[in-house]
């Protein structure tokens, strides 16, 4: 494995002590997010695609649809499949080969946030009960990692879903006519799931860490919020949290998710 230097300790000490004073190197406060920009239609062969940048962190997300057989336990519902790849192109720390745990977790946490919030109305994606339904594929790729790929992935996934159109389907031949998009949107509910990861760095809780800050994160809790409800949560890393800290994290994620929601809506206008 290639050795890549993580944030050196004398710098880490300063980051932690600065956070205690409520400050960060780039001028943000502890709950401040970097600027989010979303470019639409970055890959035309996808039914919906976006590029999301959070500061220098960048992901590309595409939505593809295909017709397939429903699962036996949900014969009248469409399928959802989310995968994430941490491309070796995007950081010296990522390697080629089978996906490592970080990439698997990135895909799974993104998947659960979207699935559990019922953002996609999967029952409306049924073509013929028990036989044919639409499968929605959401694929997330990292392009540059400067921290917080986790939140970038969900933002990208919901933005790509928002602009995606269902392709035409020829019932007779059973073929999807790619490139011929219907005017039909992917059926979505109003409850847009927003993932917010809260990190514990030293004694402080912060959101949207840079790579340098994420190196120092001892614990991450990712929550997906929508309409004042929490639909998924994952605590990562083997570091314990006080009950009070965890409760504070719930409030932080709710507060921050509202701000992100506004930014996404502005970006998609």
């Amino acid at each position: 494995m290639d050795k890549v230097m993580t944030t050196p300790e004398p710098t880490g000490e300063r980051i932690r002590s600065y956070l205690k004073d409520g400050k960060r190197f780039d001028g943000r406060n502890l709950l401040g997010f970097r600027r989010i920009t979303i470019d639409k239609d970055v890959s035309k062969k996808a039914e919906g695609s976006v590029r999301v940048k959070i500061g220098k962190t960048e992901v590309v997300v595409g939505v593809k649809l295909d017709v397939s057989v429903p699962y036996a336990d949900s014969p009248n519902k469409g399928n959802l499949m989310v995968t994430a790849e941490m491309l070796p192109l995007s950081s010296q720390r990522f390697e080629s080969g089978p996906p490592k745990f970080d990439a698997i977790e990135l895909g799974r946490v993104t998947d659960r946030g979207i699935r559990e919030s019922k953002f996609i109305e999967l029952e409306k994606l049924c073509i013929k009960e028990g036989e044919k339904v639409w499968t929605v594929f959401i694929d997330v790729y990292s392009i540059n990692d400067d921290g917080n790929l986790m939140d970038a992935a969900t933002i990208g996934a919901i933005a790509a879903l928002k602009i995606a159109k269902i392709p035409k389907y020829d019932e007779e031949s059973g073929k999807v006519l790619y490139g011929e998009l219907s005017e039909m949107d992917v059926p979505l509910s109003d409850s847009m799931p927003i993932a917010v990861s809260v990190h514990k760095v030293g004694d402080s809780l912060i959101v949207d860490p840079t790579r340098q800050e994420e190196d120092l994160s001892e614990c991450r809790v990712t929550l997906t919020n929508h309409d004042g409800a929490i639909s998924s949560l994952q605590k990562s890393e083997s570091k314990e949290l006080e009950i009070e800290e965890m409760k504070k994290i719930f409030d932080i994620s709710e507060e921050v998710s509202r701000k992100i929601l506004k930014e996404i809506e502005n970006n998609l206008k």
Partner: protein
Amino acid sequence: MSEKFKRSDGRAIDELRPVEARVGVVPNADGSAMYRSGDTIAIAAVYGPKKMHPQHQQDPSRGQLRCDYNMLSFSVSERIKPGKNRRAMEISEITKWALEPVLLLDKYPNQVIDVFIDIIQADAGTRCAGINAASLALAHAGVPMKNMVSSIAVGKLDKTLVVDLTKEEEDYEEGEGPTDIPISMTHDGKITHMQLDGKINAEQLKEAVDLAKGACEKIYEIQKKALKDAVDFGGEEK
């Protein structure tokens, strides 16, 4: 060559699709670039030279080049399963062969230069776009090179030679059908990569090579501009 031949997008037979090139698109990398030809978009990032791992692959006499070509799952109409397939593995190796001749690797014993190419959107000519992006990214990374490499797909549609095929042209069905000839060249006109699928006679294939040379010269100018534009002298100074 037939003068009457009409391309579906109205281009002249030796006309490239609209091209865009930019370096520095992946800030984490030692060098990076984006190359777009029409609806085909490739990005490339270079890491290194750095120590070769695993150790048993080290070459004490010179450095090595490793290329990794990958298409994003949604870059084509029918979603590709993420992960390596045989086609991607072959193109990765072809890309290495196309680029390695210009690199001065003697200075880097036991080291490796990694080139990662990702196709964001595909409309034919992805290996050529990938090679053009990779050549730019290698230069941008400060890797010592004898020259730049430029790459183009020449095609024969029925009996007519054209440059820079689109997917629609690759699927051309009339007459003798399509022949696809991707070629990569150094700026001083040496061929580092060539492939062919289809049917063509030797005389016309010679013409195809000459046509590729002309197209590669245009691509070289675009690559040169992208690298020169990346240095900001600011203000009035040029």
